[in-house]
C-alpha cells in the first residue's frame, strides 16, 4: 500500500529531514511513526500525500510512484488519503455537518451521496447528535473527532494523522486512539505520526522510530521506548 525505498529529503539550507529511509506499510495495517520533534515524522506523511517530493529514492502509494504524477492527477491521489492534524483545521463558520460535508462538496459529490456519507461518518465517531453545533461549542476531543469524520467521509484507503492527540488531555487522547483503531478495523490503512507515548503504549501497534531522519527501529506490537531508546 505504502512503500518508501531509500528516501532522502533535503531542504534548502542543507537540512536533511529524512535520510535513506525504507519501509513498507501493507494494506489494513496500523503504524505509529514515533520520534522526537524534528526527527522527520511529518515529512514522511507529506511524502505519502505528495505535498513533498523525495530528493532521492522512491515513494510508492497504491502502487503508483508519486513522483510520476502530473500536478492535475495529485487531487485524485489525495481523494484516497484522509488527513488529520494536531490543530484540527475546522472551519469556524460552518457546523459539524457542514465541515464534514465540505470535504465531499468540493470534490463534486452528489447531494444524496453527501447526506448518507456524512451521516455514517458522524455515527462512526459518535457525534451524530451534535451535527448542527459549531466547532467552538465542542471540546478539543470532539473537534478532533469531527476532523476524523471529515478525513474518512470519502472512504479513503489510507488515513494519515499528524500528532492527532497533541492538543488533547490523556482521556481524550485514548478516545481518539480507540477511534483510529476502529477506523483501521474497517479496513483503512492508518499511519499515525506522534510523540505521545501514552497512546502508542496503549494500542501496541507496529512502531517505526525515527532519529534525525533515520529509521532506527521498526517492530510489530511495539511500545514508545524501544530497546535502543534506553541508552
Amino acid at each position, binding site marked *: 500500500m505504502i512503500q518508501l525505498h531509500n528516501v532522502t529529503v533535503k531542504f534548502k539550507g542543507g537540512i536533511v529531514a529524512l535520510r535513506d529511509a525504507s519501509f513498507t506499510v501493507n494494506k489494513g495495517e496500523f503504524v505509529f511513526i514515533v520520534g522526537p520533534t524534528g526527527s522527520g515524522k511529518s515529512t514522511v506523511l507529506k511524502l505519502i500525500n505528495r505535498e513533498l517530493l523525495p530528493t532521492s529514492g522512491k515513494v510508492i502509494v497504491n502502487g503508483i510512484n508519486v513522483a510520476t504524477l502530473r500536478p492535475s492527477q495529485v487531487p485524485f491521489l489525495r481523494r484516497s488519503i484522509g488527513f488529520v492534524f494536531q490543530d484540527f483545521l475546522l472551519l469556524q463558520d460552518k457546523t459539524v455537518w457542514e465541515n464534514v460535508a465540505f470535504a465531499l462538496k*468540493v470534490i463534486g459529490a452528489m447531494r444524496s451521496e453527501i447526506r448518507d456519507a456524512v451521516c455514517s461518518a458522524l455515527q462512526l465517531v459518535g457525534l451524530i447528535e451534535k451535527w448542527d453545533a459549531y466547532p467552538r461549542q465542542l471540546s478539543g476531543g470532539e473537534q478532533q473527532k469531527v476532523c476524523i469524520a471529515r478525513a474518512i467521509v470519502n472512504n479513503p484507503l489510507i488515513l494519515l494523522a499528524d500528532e492527532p492527540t497533541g492538543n488533547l488531555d490523556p482521556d481524550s487522547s485514548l478516545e481518539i486512539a480507540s477511534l483510529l483503531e476502529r477506523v483501521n478495523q474497517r479496513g483503512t490503512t492508518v499511519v499515525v505520526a506522534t510523540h505521545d507515548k501514552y497512546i502508542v503504549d496503549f494500542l501496541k501497534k507496529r512502531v517505526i522510530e525515527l532519529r534525525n531522519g533515520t529509521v532506527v527501529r521498526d517492530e510489530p506490537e511495539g511500545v514508545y521506548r524501544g530497546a535502543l531508546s534506553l541508552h
Partner: protein
Amino acid sequence: MPFRFIEHCLSEAFTSMRRHWLMSMAATVSAAISVAIFGLLVLIVLYIRSAVIHESEKVNHMRVYLHNSVTEQQARELQRRIQRWVLVKSVRFVHKDEGLKEMEAAMGDNISLRNLAGGNPLPHRLDVVAVNFEDAVECAKRLERLPGVESVICMADVVRQLSRIFGLVRLCGLTLVIITALATLTLIANAIRLTIYARREAIRIMQLVGATIWFIRAPLLLEGLVYGLIGGAFASLMVYGAHTSLLRLVETNKILLTLFHVAVPNWHFFASLTVVGLIFGLLGSLSAVNQLVRYLS
C-alpha cells in the same frame, strides 16, 4: 457535476464579496473609473478623427478674406489673376451677402447677424482650391502677400493643428488609462488576495481532500469577473451619459453637430466597454490566483 460546480463557485464568490464588501466596492468603483476613462478617451479620439476626416476632404481649400474696402469689381480682377497661377486649380468669388447667408445657415435660424451688427459686417471672399495638398500652405503664403488680402484661412493648417491636438489627447488619455488600469488591477488582485487570506483554511482543506485546482481557482476568478463586469457596465452607462449630454449641448450649433454626428457610437461600443471591464477583472484575479497556485504546487 457542472451544476454543482457552478453552485459552488457562486456561493463561494458571493460569500467572500459580502464579507469584505468595502474592498469589493473599491475594486468595482476603480474598475468603473478606469473603464470610463478608457471609454471617454476612445470617444474623444472618435470625435477628433471624424473632425479631421471631415475637414481633410477640403484640405486643399483656402478662404481668402479681402479688405472691407475692396469692391466687387476689384475682387473679380484678383480672382482672374489668381486663376492663372500654376498651383491653383480653381477660384470662386463669394459675395459678402452670400457669405452671410452661409454663416447664418450654419449657426441656426435664431440669430440674425445682419440685425446684430446693423448691416453685413463681412468682406468679400475668394475660395481658392490648390491643385494638391502639399502646395496648399505655400499657396496660402503667397495669397497673404497680395494687395487687398486681409487674411487667409488654410484648411491644411487647420488639419495639421487638429492632428496635433489629436495626438496630444491620445497621449494624455493613454497615460491616464494605463495609470487607472494599473490601480484597478491592483485593487482587484488585492480583493482576491483578501479572499484567499480569509479562506486560507478552507483552501488548505480543499487541497488536502483532493479538490481539483478548478474548484479552488474558479470561485476566485469569478469574484474578479464580477467586479470587472459591474464596473464595466457602470462605465458604459457613464460614457453613454457623457455622449448624449454632449450631443444635447451642441444641438444648437450645426457645425459642431455634424462633427459629433459622424462619431455616434453604437451599442457595440458600449458592449465592448463592458468586455474591457471583464478583461480587467480577469487579469486582476488571475494575477492573485496564479500566486496562490504557485504556492499550492
